[in-house]
């Protein structure tokens, strides 16, 4: 099967470029020519057809010099490269490139844990290091530091952080907790951010800002450079840990829960990511939809009530945890009982009471930094793995929570899908994550899910809600919603793109940022 190529690249030029890359890094780390292995770089779960966005080739360098060699060749032949780290950004695209025919730059081989400093509580890692890998390393070496994994622990620390991912411990805002980057620009320039640019420094991973402009953010959710090393602060293991669950009986309780959570989070009474989880998100790791409902469309209320009763769950299920010396945790727990626990119909559950509950167990692990894959069990709700996440941001108010919930639930039901969602309060904002699950073997259903997603983006934007992250297929649409002052921000991104990457070789279209030579066809800013 001949590879799909970008329209400006002839098969001959592409072939020359790939041969040169193979010479630079070794034939065994290059995949091309329609090799079936290319299919392991597809997104197996999205609303796009099965073989959408398959790359034309894959190159997997190990080390800065090999990356620089590939960049040089890509610049000479204008080959678009799509960097991935562990390639597990599922629901948002996985390892697949933005467009078919790009060459994936797979950094998974670069998976060294370069340093773990127990005294200052940080790690310095390469892009291929997964949460499981760092966790195993800390365990084996008896280092009393916690990581903060994404819910599926197969993901990577660098990739998740650069995508603005969130976790469940008090270190849940990953980008906030990173410290220092090493970056290669598309022209091969290698530099370090923050204190890392001082040759004799020992402060690269202890102070984020350095001297002068802070550039780290420019390399997150962007296509301006390749991050090859990153520092990550790790939480020292606390002397005590107390996870809890509070179940609520009514859908409309979401409003009062959110109002009560806000001061508890803003004042840091609850130190970690506070999650208000809807019934199906919690239940789906334990039961399949078929066990309760064999019809088409969203599961009816009668079945929801049955699940609530069978599994002692609420319409909403609030998870958080306390950390520290036991007397401090017990005092704070009393505040929780007097506030969140005092909402009519609330029931507070301890770890002991839910020790046989797989959902409580995996959340309890996540909130103490133990990576696992249990949440992936959500995929068993419908089966087949089709899922895509819609994740709008809002202030933490009851009114916003209800408005988003009603809006997304109603549209979701109208299109024949279950509402499966959670509201994550990090500090001041809410990330509302709606898990749109569908049967990928049913083309009509897959396309219906795709259409629904597009409708949600525009409807949310009209109400003032923007997504913090999105799937490849919707990057342009979401980017267009950040339009204040005639798309001034995306116009600036395009100017940065031209400055950092004049040949437009790095991840064209990532986050709706297109290089000059593709702008006429794809961009909306002029």
């Amino acid at each position, binding site marked *: 099967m001949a590879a799909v190529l970008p329209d400006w690249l002839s098969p001959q030029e592409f072939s020359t470029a790939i041969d040169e890359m193979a010479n630079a890094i070794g034939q065994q780390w290059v995949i091309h020519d329609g090799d079936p292995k290319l299919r392991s770089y597809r997104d*197996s779960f999205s609303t796009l057809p099965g073989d959408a966005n398959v790359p034309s080739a894959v190159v997997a360098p190990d080390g800065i010099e090999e990356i620089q060699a590939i960049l040089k060749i890509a610049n000479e032949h204008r080959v678009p490269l799509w960097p991935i780290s562990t390639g597990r950004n599922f629901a948002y695209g996985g390892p697949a490139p933005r467009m078919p025919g790009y060459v994936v730059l797979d950094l998974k081989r670069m998976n060294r844990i370069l340093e773990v400093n127990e005294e200052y509580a940080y790690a310095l890692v390469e892009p291929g290091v997964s949460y499981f890998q760092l966790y195993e390393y800390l365990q084996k070496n008896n280092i009393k530091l916690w990581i903060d994994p994404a819910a599926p622990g197969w993901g990577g620390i660098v990739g998740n952080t650069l995508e603005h991912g969130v976790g469940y411990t008090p270190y849940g805002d990953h980008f906030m907790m990173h410290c220092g980057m090493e970056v290669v620009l598309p022209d091969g320039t290698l530099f370090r951010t923050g204190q890392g640019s001082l040759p004799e420094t020992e402060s690269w991973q202890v102070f984020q800002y350095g001297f002068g402009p802070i550039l780290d953010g420019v390399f997150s959710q962007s296509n301006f450079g390749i991050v090859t090393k990153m520092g990550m602060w790790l939480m020292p293991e606390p002397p005590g840990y107390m996870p809890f669950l509070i179940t609520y009986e009514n859908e409309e309780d979401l409003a009062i829960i959110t109002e009560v959570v806000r001061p508890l989070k803003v004042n840091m009474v609850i130190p970690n990511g506070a999650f208000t989880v809807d019934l199906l998100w919690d239940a789906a790791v334990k039961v399949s939809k078929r066990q309760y409902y064999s019809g088409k469309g969203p599961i009816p209320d009668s079945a929801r009530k049955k699940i609530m009763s069978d599994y002692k769950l609420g319409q909403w299920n609030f998870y958080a945890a306390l950390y520290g010396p036991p007397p401090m945790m017990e005092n704070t727990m009393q505040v929780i009982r007097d506030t969140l626990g005092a909402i009519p119909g609330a029931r507070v559950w301890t770890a002991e009471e839910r020790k046989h509950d797989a959902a409580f167990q995996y959340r309890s692990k996540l909130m103490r930094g133990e990576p696992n894959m249990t949440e992936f069990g959500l995929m*068993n709700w419908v089966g087949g793995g089709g899922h895509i996440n819609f994740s709008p941001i809002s202030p933490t108010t009851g009114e916003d929570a209800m408005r988003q919930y009603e809006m997304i639930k109603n549209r979701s039901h109208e299109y024949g899908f279950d509402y499966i969602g959670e509201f994550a309060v990090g500090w001041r904002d809410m990330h509302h994550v709606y898990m749109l699950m569908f049967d990928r073997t049913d083309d009509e259903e897959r396309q219906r899910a795709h259409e629904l997603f597009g409708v949600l983006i525009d409807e949310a934007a009209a109400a003032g809600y923007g997504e913090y992250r999105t799937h490849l297929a919707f990057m342009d649409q979401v980017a267009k919603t950040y339009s204040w002052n005639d798309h001034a921000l995306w116009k600036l991104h395009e100017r940065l793109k031209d400055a950092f990457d004049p040949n437009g070789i790095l991840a064209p279209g990532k986050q709706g940022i297109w290089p000059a030579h593709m702008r006429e066809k794809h961009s909306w800013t002029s």
Partner: protein
Amino acid sequence: MDKLISLIGLALLVSSAAAPVMAEERPRPGEESWLLFCEGCHRPDAEGPGTVMLQRRFGDERMAIKGNKTLAPEYIRSVVRHGLLEMAPLRQTDITDAELDLLIEFLASE
């Protein structure tokens, strides 16, 4: 004072600082690959989504992939490389062919 230090968990301040760089053993032993790529979904209990799905479909006898004699090496190799439904494929950069052989040996062991 000792009590205070242990109470608030500051004991780590007296521990040594930088741990050595982890030089991963390659080819990676089968058990290591299992921990990094398989166990999360295929741990043999209700917290393993792969196990839960296989139990629903094939019953208790065949829900575990570790120690499961009904799984042919070629079948495992194919599912790992191509993926199957909820399971995403593992790439050559995740696990090499030689490491996949070691993993298959580990899965067959008791």
